[in-house]
């Protein structure tokens, strides 16, 4: 571990806390289409209408057309459930048929949200059961080595399963099913088992359930629990988080900054969505993965290293606001410095060790080289080997394995096998490395780590002064500028009415506060 000036680290944390606090005011004052749909999902509404439109979309669109979504779906639904005696799902089906007008149940005052307790309780019970199942499966696991994380991305869930089973047989601990690239911009979660996707596979509840079952089976065979990852990102952050909580995903990519910068999603929309999604993940004990690593694919990994550190501090505070335990905060970073640069490994080592030292409880997610991977697969293997050494030697937790064909295609089965073998080898060879050396306090690694931390502190104070929204507009992350009024999904943001309630989030927060304080 590095010896750092704890005053600087505290100063970073404090600035990040103020930055997150400021954004939280906007979060608390608004709801969004996908948040309201998530509430419906956690009241037991799933499935689609005759035109394959998810029922949760049918209901929210119905309220937007006939009523006022700023009052929230609960405002209309609570009395409808009480008066008709029907479940929320039965009502949703009736709305889809045109048989029920939900806005008839409008009321001048706040409604009694506890009328929905009967619908909510079994859903929360399912999430608790899934959480217990995971915890008991993992309780005997002594996680000393980094967890090996590989992706599958064929577009066809059945083919994904074939690839995942092979990866598990070869030692993978974590399987991520990459989403079809367009999905983050869909304002709904598609339904059913799917066989067509580009660069990935649709995240649907059915696909997730099928993969979960396959990994449980493969894990049983291999004698260990295998974790499943998907993406609570894009325009349906909290809905995917809810599906993941119900279907026992173990990790979620979850970072609104990524959506803002790389998918041009409106920042207001996605910060609001991110909060509820993190509350759900915290409640379900799902580890989140943040996306700082991606900044370095557009910005220079050496010059802009401090933006990653600054963003990790901010993401930590956003997660803390959602009452997420530190052991669930998989903050992201990456090995992306130009291999032509002299001492590139030492700089990478410094950055990885800095993250490890500053966030000792976080299961850091460390990403392999991508930007400087080329069609030269033989050099690619060498690059990945150095990355694996940095991962093991600095004690990273979530080890996303690099693929030798990164610059060519989504991984073949053999690419993944080569990556797993390489990681295994490095893990064995470097196991005692950390304990065998003391870093030269005046050497390049320590000096570089201090420099990056100092630059991060300075950036955090700048952002604190100008505010997060302005900082993003100035292109402070990844050299990409986005503004408050721009981006996808803004039309789905609504200020909360005085009668607005979200009993699902309230129930989760109550439990989380009790757990954290107890």
């Amino acid at each position, binding site marked *: 571990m590095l010896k750092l000036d704890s005053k600087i680290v505290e100063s970073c944390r404090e600035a990040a806390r103020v930055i997150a606090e400021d954004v939280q005011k906007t979060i608390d004052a608004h709801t969004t289409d996908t948040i309201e749909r998530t509430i419906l999902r956690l009241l037991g509404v799933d499935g689609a209408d005759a035109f394959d439109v998810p029922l949760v979309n049918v209901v929210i669109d119905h309220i937007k057309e006939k009523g006022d979504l700023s009052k929230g779906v609960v405002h209309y639904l609570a009395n409808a459930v009480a008066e008709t005696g029907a479940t929320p799902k039965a009502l949703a089906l009736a709305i889809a048929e045109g048989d029920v007008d939900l806005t008839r149940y409008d009321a001048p005052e706040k409604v009694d949200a506890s009328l929905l307790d009967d619908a909510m309780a079994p859903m929360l019970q399912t999430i608790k059961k899934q959480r217990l199942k995971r915890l008991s499966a993992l309780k005997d696991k002594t996680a000393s080595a980094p967890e090996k994380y590989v992706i599958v991305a064929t577009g066809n869930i059945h083919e994904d399963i074939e690839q995942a089973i092979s990866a598990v047989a070869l030692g993978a601990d974590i399987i991520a099913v990459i989403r079809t690239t367009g999905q983050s911009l869909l304002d709904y979660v598609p339904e059913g088992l799917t066989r067509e996707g580009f660069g990935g596979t649709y995240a649907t509840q059915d696909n997730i359930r099928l993969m979960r079952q396959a990994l449980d089976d493969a894990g049983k065979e291999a004698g260990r629990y295998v974790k499943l990852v998907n993406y609570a990102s894009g325009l349906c952050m909290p809905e995917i988080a809810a599906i993941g909580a119900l279907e026992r995903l173990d990790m979620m990519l979850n970072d609104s900054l990524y959506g803002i910068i790389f998918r041009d999603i409106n920042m207001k929309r996605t910060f609001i969505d991110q909060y509820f999604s993190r509350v759900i993940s915290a409640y379900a004990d799902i580890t989140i993965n943040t996306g700082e690593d991606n900044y370095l694919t557009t910005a220079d990994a050496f010059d802009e290293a401090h933006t990653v550190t600054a963003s990790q501090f901010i993401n930590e505070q956003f997660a803390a606001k959602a009452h997420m335990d530190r052991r669930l905060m998989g903050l992201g970073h990456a090995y992306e410095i130009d291999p032509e640069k002299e001492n590139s490994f030492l700089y990478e080592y410094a950055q990885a060790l800095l993250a490890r030292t500053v966030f000792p409880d976080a299961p850091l997610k460390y990403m392999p080289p991508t930007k400087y991977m080329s069609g030269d697969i033989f050099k690619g293997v060498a690059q990945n080997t150095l990355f694996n050494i940095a991962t093991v030697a600095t004690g990273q937790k979530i080890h996303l394995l690099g693929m030798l064909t990164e610059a060519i295609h989504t991984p073949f089965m*053999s690419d993944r096998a080569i990556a797993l073998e390489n990681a295994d080898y490095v893990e064995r060879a470097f196991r005692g490395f950390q304990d065998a050396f003391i870093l030269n306090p005046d050497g390049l690694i320590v000096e570089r780590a201090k420099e990056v931390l100092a630059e991060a502190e300075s950036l955090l104070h700048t952002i604190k002064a100008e505010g997060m929204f302005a900082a993003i507009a100035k292109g402070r992350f990844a050299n990409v500028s986005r503004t408050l009024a721009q981006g996808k999904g803004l039309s789905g943001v609504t200020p909360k009415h005085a009668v607005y309630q979200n009993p699902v989030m309230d129930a989760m927060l109550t439990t989380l506060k009790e757990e954290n304080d107890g």
Partner: protein
Amino acid sequence: MDRSPSVNIRPYGDTKNDGKIQISFTLPLKNDALGEEAAKALAAKMGVPDAHVTHRKSLDEQYTFYILYGTLTHVVDPSTLHVPLATEAAMTKEEVEAFIAGHFQEEIVFIGASTGTDAHTVGIDAIMNMKGYAGHYGLERYSGVRAINLGSQVDNERLLEEALKHEADVILISQTVTQKNIHIQNLTAFIELLEAEGRRDDFLVVVGGARINHALAKELGYDAGFGPKQYAADVASFCVVELHRRGRKTFT
């Protein structure tokens, strides 16, 4: 030693025309002697009748990975081949800038994007952004050039819309990573869109990417294509010369 190309060429291991090559692939077969025989039989059909399986590894019960070395019996005569290139002799950044100053009345507008579902910006950034790639500055840094980079996952429709709005001279499309050749469909769709809107002749349309070359680009209806190891100066050289040839924005 004679280094002039012989007519018939074979791969080089350690002796001229020894034909030595390596091959690797996965078969959906158990890791056993029969699987190894199948791998060798495939190599023989590729023209490697004496292949040795130097490594085989189970990927799970159903799949095995093979590495083979052998002697290729096929030959190729390079004098019978022709490789079309967008630019025979690329100019340097400074030469491109001088060419623009000397031949055009206005700045040249390049608009670029990584289109369709492709989320990778590395290619378009390498060509367009200030910093460039591997020491080759991007178009943004060229005087006489206005470079607009729309980033990744841009729809074909939006790219055309922005190109019209900015009165672009050149449209640059990047396609980095592909799966089952989706990039070809997307590239074709853009040319079809331009033609349907009657805008094909309003722009130079250029495509670049790891799997792109000039011949493929021409086949798909593009003006030029650029692949690996080609940088901003290569793209710019072609574009300014071609725009000049077409008399666009040139001094009269």
